[in-house]
C-alpha cells in the first residue's frame, strides 16, 4: 500500500505486516497520525503525509520491517 505526497512516501508491506490486532504499533506511535486502523490493516492517511517529521518511530516499532519511508525530494 502506498500514497502520494509532494515530499514523503510511506509504504506498508502488507505481506509482512502482522496486522493491527497482533501489533498496531505504527498507529500508536506516529505523532502526526499517518497510520490509521482500516479493519486489521494499517492504512496510510494521505492528507497527513506532508506532516511526517521523519522521526522513524514507526520503523523502530515495526518488528517485521514492513514500513519504508522515502523522501521524494532526494534524488
Amino acid at each position, binding site marked *: 500500500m502506498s500514497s502520494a505526497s509532494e515530499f514523503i512516501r510511506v509504504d506498508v508491506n502488507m505481506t509482512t505486516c502482522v496486522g493491527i490486532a497482533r501489533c498496531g504499533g505504527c498507529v500508536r506511535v506516529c505523532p502526526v497520525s499517518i497510520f490509521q486502523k482500516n479493519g486489521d490493516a494499517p492504512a496510510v492517511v494521505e492528507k497527513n503525509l*506532508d506532516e511526517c517529521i521523519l522521526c522513524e518511530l514507526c520503523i523502530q516499532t515495526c518488528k517485521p520491517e514492513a514500513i519504508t519511508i522515502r523522501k521524494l525530494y532526494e534524488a
Partner: protein
Amino acid sequence: MRLLEYESKRILEKYRIPLPAGRLVALGEILKIDKPVMLKAQIPIGGRGKAGGILEASDTEDARQKISHLLQSNLRGYIPKSVYMEEKKAVKQEFFMGVTYDTVAKAPLAIFSPAGGIDIEELAQKQPELVCKEHFTVASRLPLHRAREIVAETGISGKLLLGLSPLLSKLADVFLDYDATVVEINPLGLMDDGQLVALDCHMEIDDDAVFRHADIASMEKDTGRVEGEKRMSDFERKASEINDLDHRGVAGRMIEFDGNLGLIIGGGGASLTAFDAIRAHGGRPANYCEIGGNPSVLKVKELTKLILSKPGVNKIAVIMNVVSNTRVDLVARGIVKGILESGKNPARTVAVFRIPGAWEEEGFKILSKYGIPIQGRTVSIDEAARIATKNSD
C-alpha cells in the same frame, strides 16, 4: 496599553505641565462656542490628523456637526467613542519632547528636538543634529540640570531654555512614576505670549505594570473607552483562522499592508528587523506575519496560499533568524506546497528563503529540488531583506 490623548493629558496636568483648556464632549451635548476650537477624536493610534481625526470648528453649529461626524468616522480602524474639545492656540514654534526606554542600552532615554509636530524618527535620520537624546537612570531620574543640558545641546538658550527644561524633567518623572514605555509631547507649542503648552500627548504604559496604577487599571477595564480593537481585515481574519487550524506553533499572526511583497517571517524581534530592513531597502511589504514554534506544514501552506491570493502579490520572502524550535524542512515543505497549490512556480515565487537552523540540511534539499536559492546563516537578515527587495518585482 496606549492611553487616549485626554487620559494622558490628565496625567500631565497632575505634574503641572501646561495644557490648552479642554474637555471631553458627548454626542448631542448642548455646546456654546464663541472662539475657534480643535475637535480631536479619541483613538489609541497615531496618524490621527492625517486620517481626518482632528478638525477645527469656528462656531457652535460647526462644532456640533463636526463632533457628530467624528463620532461616526472610521479612523485607522477605530470608531471614536469620545471627542476632546480644546481651545485653538496660536502657536509660534513647535517642539518635540519624549521619554522612552532604550532596550539596547537598558536605560530610559530622554529625547528633545526644536522641530516638533513631525515624525521624530524620520527627523533623527534626516537631520540628526536637530534631535538630542540622552540616557538617564531610574535611580537618579532626570534632574533639572541634566534636562537643561539636553535642551541646550540643540542650540536653545535664554528664557526658552529655562521654560523647556523643567517640562522635560517632569516628563521623565511621568515616565518613571507611571511605568510608561513611552511618553511624548508632540507638539509642545510656544505661544505668542511665551507660554509653553502641551498640544498633544502620546503615552503608553507597560502592560505588566498596569496593576500598579489603580487609575490606569480602571481605564483598562472600561470597555466603553475604545471601540474594540483595531478591526481585522478579511485577510487578517482568514490568517487568524489558519493559525487556529491546529495547535502546532504560530502561523497566522498577520497585519495587512498594501505592498506587493508577501512576507512569512520569524516572530519577535527578527520579524520586526526583517520588516524594517525590507522597507529600508525600498521594498513594499504586502503584510507583516509571524511564524514560529514549529507550525504544521498545513498552516504554513495555507498561509502561503492566502498571501499569494492577494491581488498584486506574486513574490514571497521567507525570513527567520537562526531557528532551534522551528524546523527548516517543515517550513520549506509548507512554502513549496502552498506555491504549487497556488499554481505558481516556487523558483520564481520565492523572493528569498533565509531560514538557517534545525533540520536545515533537509530543508535545503527541498529548496534545491524546486530551484530555490539557499541562503544560509552567513547571510544576515539585512542582506536577506536586500535580496528579497531586489527580487520582489
